[in-house]
């Protein structure tokens, strides 16, 4: 298993994405961050915390589970750990920044958009990815990218992220299993 980025690089990437979001949205009246379960939840939470600090006001945060909209039923067994969609702020007319840990095929994002629009009609949706590993199957691009990793189809990008910056945080590439 090859380490690609250590905790210092990961922490800096999260902060840089937060700074970029703040630059673009300092004047946006109604915006929130939504982490895509399960991998994007901690990234989204860290972003919301950082951006709130930079803006000096609390940025609303929610979680979104896109599982029921996925097109790959039968491709993956369903994990027993389940994190549900929980968005407690009004998304109608809002700018929503979806956060995910790894952007790969774009399928998760497609499902996430459907789930999001079942809840309301945001005015604008952006995507923040901690890691972009390339290899898209759908026309999807991230508005904010923390780190870029070159990985082939036989490899898996593993992100370890904690609630608060931690020496355990890392990005690895390992053979897909």
């Amino acid at each position, binding site marked *: 298993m090859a380490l690609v980025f250590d905790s210092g690089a990961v922490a800096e990437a999260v902060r840089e994405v937060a700074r970029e979001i703040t630059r673009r949205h300092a004047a946006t009246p109604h915006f929130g961050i939504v982490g895509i379960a399960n991998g994007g939840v901690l990234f989204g939470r860290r972003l919301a915390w950082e951006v709130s600090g930079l803006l000096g006001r609390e940025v609303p945060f929610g979680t979104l589970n896109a599982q029921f*909209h996925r097109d790959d039923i*039968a*491709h993956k*067994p*369903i*994990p*027993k750990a389940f994190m549900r969609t929980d968005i407690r702020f009004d998304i109608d007319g809002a700018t929503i920044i979806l956060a995910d840990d790894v952007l790969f095929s774009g399928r998760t994002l497609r499902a996430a958009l459907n789930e999001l629009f079942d809840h309301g009609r945001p005015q604008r949706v952006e995507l923040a990815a901690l890691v972009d590993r390339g290899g898209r199957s759908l026309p999807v691009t991230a508005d904010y990218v923390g780190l870029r990793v070159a990985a082939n189809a036989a490899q898996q990008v593993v992100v370890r992220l904690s609630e608060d910056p931690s020496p355990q945080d890392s990005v690895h590439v390992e053979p897909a299993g």
Partner: protein
Amino acid sequence: MSSPPAKRLSNPPMSESEYWNRKDLTGLEDVTRAEIDLIHSLAASFKETLGRRQKKLPSLRGKTVVNLFMEPSTRTRVAFEIAAKRLSADVISISGDSSSVVKGETLKDTALNIQALNADMIVLRHKAAGAAQYLAKILDIPVINAGDGAHEHPTQALLDTFTLREKWGSLEGRKVTILGDILFSRVARSNIWALRTLGAHVTLAGPNTLVPKQFEELGVKVVHDLREALHDADAVMLLRIQHERQTSSHFPSLKEYTASFGLNKLRMSWLKPGALIMHPGPINRGVEIDSDVADGAQSVILEQVTNGIVCRMAVLYLCANAAAVLRKARGLEVDQ
């Protein structure tokens, strides 16, 4: 119509796997705490979708669910139909008296034909205990037990415990009394498994002919005195007297049952304040339950019915997915 035995699908032995891997749900006896937790988390998530602008989810789009009901049912059949439709599946309901069973076709042949007609799941209600397990063994498609004789009714117990979790958060250490016709009740059996797995203490109560002491072998308390059964219960699940399953008389008359065990306003005062009243339906007003009690503030009977939709959505979703994963793993199906 049949495929080689090597390709036969069946539930893999239950492991401590972190994934749901059951293609069928035939009972709760061997279902783990983690599995019930998953069903309930999904159900909670589905419940939230009932209040959305868009109530339908696309998860089972293109799948066909056949409800094969060889015994009468209103709630369960309708709840399974709505559950499947909310997940965008197509649903066909067949009842015993309108099927070829009346022409002498066996359950096995009926089921194999339904599978050959390209159905993706069967929801089965049948008078014979073990009917769902039998079909699960011979069919590649998922089989969900919607009640088999006096054996199990797993989705009923899942929705009952889901309702209690919504009220209490956790069932750990809670006391639940199941009152009535335990002997003939598949609802009681499934609830005993589910409640115990979730950490509740179960008391069975009713006349000794309908609540034999042998049930204590299942790790529950058996009492025949109503006051004792009620005084420390956090919830009471009432069961209907099942005339249709009783071959000999287990008590002198319904009137006598009501006099000894019917839950009325006076007897409600034996309960702790705030104890919940549950009933899987259909209720027989004036027999096991008085209208005052059934329609009272402590009754969660109609919430149980609503929760029946979302718990069944979770079961359909999980078993459909597990079956598809199994088929793919065995090379039976190309990607769709």
